[in-house]
């Protein structure tokens, strides 16, 4: 790819961003909603732009393209990438926030906005969000989990399991129709999933066929026999599974609580979907925030040595010697005090919760940059003795330029590997921290809060297990995909492993 087409790509990207922004602003103006830019939203956008920019940059450089091609050649790596992208898609939908207008009844344009901050994902999931019950109900249940005293019109009272307001409300006689209805919906959902899959796959196959200059038949045959460089059939298969799940969810979720409801009757499926953004934000923004420090300090320590090295080493040894959980706990406690004393800093609850999430990322970043910094220092120590760096020094090239041209590009594989490896650990850490009480805001949807809420009901008989199941499934899939993807990336980028 020539530099010219790289520039074309950047212009296309900018155009796309402007178009998206314009569409968003138009939609806001049309509905009278007020866009809300949360701190983490802004950083998520920055991250997305950075990643797209990196992709465009890497496309034209063979030494960067080659390891990535190796990642895509791995079947597990590719499958996990598709799953990760699905999570990212949901997370991005959940990162566009606004406040809807409240009709003040004065006829003029409404000036007041709802206190609740919604996201595009909330709009999509409106049926789920609004179908709340009174309290616990099991997955696919039509009746409440707890008995209630009901008064009949004739004055008599009885303790029964009342019907749910939304779960299976369309059934006239749940005892008889329940199983048949679910089976029918399963079938419809599968069919819908299949249709979505075909609609998604058609453009992909068309694109591939055009690229290979083949007819559709030949291209399809090539894909399914695995005769191409990248195992595209893995992508199609993973997409099929995801589409099947999507179809089932589309058909079942409006009529049943697929994962039941929680203590206050909120749909658990909705909560788990909302938790995706929290998990992704913690996993990615933490590294984004700490990366500049780790790279800058690590390289300078190794390159300049002397007192710079001493100061930086002292800094990270000190930070490292405090056990991570305790430092996080102490910092979050102080943050709580600070926020309690400065309520004027945030307009809405969501903004407060978001600020806490942001600071949690910062704090996690502070505790987790030391490992990367130490590795980079070691690598820079080695690199500064390499011939080409010595030559550059002898020619009188300035330090900044040597670091930028010779050292930094040669340590980037370490940075990339550690970023990808850290991700899954951070997602898991969020759950533990929320459990300890120093994680995200209790009002925020997160898997940790979901588990924490369900834990209190463990002793109940029969047990309330569905919140745990939902959190388990969603977390497990994300973390497993991240781990597998990280393995593929490490194998492709680590020069020691590549030789073998």
């Amino acid at each position, binding site marked *: 790819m020539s530099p010219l087409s790289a520039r074309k790509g950047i212009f296309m990207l900018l155009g796309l961003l402007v178009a998206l922004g314009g569409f968003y602003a138009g939609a806001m103006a049309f509905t009278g909603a007020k866009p809300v830019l949360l701190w983490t939203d802004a950083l998520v956008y920055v991250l997305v732009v950075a990643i797209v920019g990196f992709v465009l940059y890497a496309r034209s450089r063979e030494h960067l393209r080659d390891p990535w091609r190796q990642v895509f050649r791995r079947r597990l790596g590719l499958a996990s990438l598709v799953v990760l992208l699905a999570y990212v898609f949901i997370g991005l939908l959940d990162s566009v926030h606004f406040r809807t207008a409240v009709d003040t009844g004065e006829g003029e344009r409404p000036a007041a906005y709802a206190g609740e901050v919604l996201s595009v994902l909330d709009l999509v999931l409106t049926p789920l969000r609004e179908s709340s019950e009174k309290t616990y109900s099991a997955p696919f249940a039509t009746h409440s989990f707890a008995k209630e005293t009901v008064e009949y019109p004739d004055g008599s009272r009885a303790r029964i399991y009342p019907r749910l307001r939304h779960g299976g409300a369309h059934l006239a006689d749940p005892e008889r129709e329940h199983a048949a209805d679910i089976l029918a919906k399963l079938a419809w959902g599968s069919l819908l999933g299949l249709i979505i899959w075909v609609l998604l796959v058609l453009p992909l196959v068309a694109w591939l066929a055009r690229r290979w200059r083949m007819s559709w038949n030949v291209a399809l045959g090539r894909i399914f026999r695995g005769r191409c460089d990248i195992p595209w059939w893995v992508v199609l298969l993973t997409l099929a599974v995801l589409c099947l799940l999507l179809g089932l969810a589309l058909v079942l979720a409006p009529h049943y609580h697929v994962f039941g409801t929680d203590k206050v009757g909120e749909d658990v499926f909705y909560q788990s979907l909302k938790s995706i953004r929290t998990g992704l934000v913690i996993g990615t923004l933490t590294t984004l925030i700490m990366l500049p420090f780790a790279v800058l300090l690590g390289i300078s320590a190794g390159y300049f040595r002397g007192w710079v090295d001493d100061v930086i080493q002292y800094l990270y040894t*000190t*930070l490292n010697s405090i056990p991570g959980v305790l*430092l996080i706990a102490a910092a979050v406690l102080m943050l709580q*005090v600070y926020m*309690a004393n400065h309520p004027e800093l945030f307009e809405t609850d969501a903004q407060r919760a978001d600020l806490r999430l942001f600071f949690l990322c910062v704090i996690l970043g502070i505790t987790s940059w030391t490992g990367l910094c130490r590795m980079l220092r070691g690598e820079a120590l080695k690199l500064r003795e390499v011939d080409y760096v010595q030559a550059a020094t002898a020619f009188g090239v300035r330090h900044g330029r040597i670091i930028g041209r010779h050292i930094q590009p040669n340590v980037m594989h370490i940075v990339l590997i550690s970023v990808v490896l850290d991700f899954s650990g951070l997602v*898991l850490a969020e*759950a533990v921290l929320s459990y300890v009480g120093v994680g995200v805001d209790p009002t925020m949807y997160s898997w940790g809060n979901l588990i924490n809420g369900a834990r209190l009901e463990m002793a109940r008989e029969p047990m309330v297990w569905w919140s745990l199941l939902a959190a*388990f499934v969603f*977390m*497990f899939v994300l973390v497993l995909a991240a781990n597998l993807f990280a393995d593929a990336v490490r194998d492709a980028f680590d020069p020691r492993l590549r030789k073998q």
Partner: protein
Amino acid sequence: MLAYIVRRLLYAVPILIGVNLLTFLLFFVVNTPDDMARMQLGMKRVSEEAITNWKQERGYDKPVIYNAEAEGVERFTETIFFQHSVRLFVFDFGRSDSGRDIGHDIAERMWPSLAIALPTFVIGILVNITFALLMVFFRATYVDLWGVVLCVILMSISGLFYIIGGQYLVGKVLHLVPISGYDDGINAIKFVILPVLIGVISGIGSGTRWYRTIFLEESGKDYVRTARAKGLSELQVLFRHVLRNALIPILTGAVVVLPLLFMGSLIMESFFGIPGLGSYTIDAINGQDFAIVRAMVFLGSVLYILGLLLTDISYTLVDPRIRLQ
């Protein structure tokens, strides 16, 4: 050797001062004692008197760093910094915000923590090394491949689920041992078994994988090839050569965390209701007892630095090539 240890101990002093300054900044400068008092007493309409009282009871009513009203040395000793931060250096933890003696509490709660953490740690290492050796013995076969896949799957499950699942299965369905609680002396065993078991299982995934990498790296070296070439059986190669040489990286990982075992595990102890230092910390966090959290941060870093020192010393014991000077 002795000179080395003394020098390392001296090197630890500036780090501990750094930790101390950091916690001091975090606890007294980011938020003033007034803020903390207001938080503890409830936010709405707290009278000035109540705040002053609260601060006086806990000794937070003094100036932060420099006391202009006092005489001589007391200008520096009659301050929050000296009373609450400098004293940590001699392990004088003072009183918690609820009035209990922290040093006494720590000494008492250390043992239950250790009763869980030490067996978990030792059994965990043995189990992981066994599995890793098995996988290396069967390397490049399906046993190895599926072993790695299983490890990644085990790694991807949150620790919370191991605990919840284990409690449910062993405690509630099978009724083998009590779900939570603790007892002194020999009676503690029935309370200890389940946490240890779960701790070991939850660590298998990452641990086995880590040791497998170490063993594989070692078994690719020249001396291993020589050992095979001279006709040693695969088992002999593994145990006499690979395992013994791989002990060095294993020790680095293991000895560092050894002193930290005293601190216990936050999650484990709070789930199983064990009165150790982990649950002590959690209670302090939930009760917003700043004095205890401060003490635990300091204690944790002291133990970590001790772990680093022990690691260096253990190197000389297992690797004759390394001499400390």
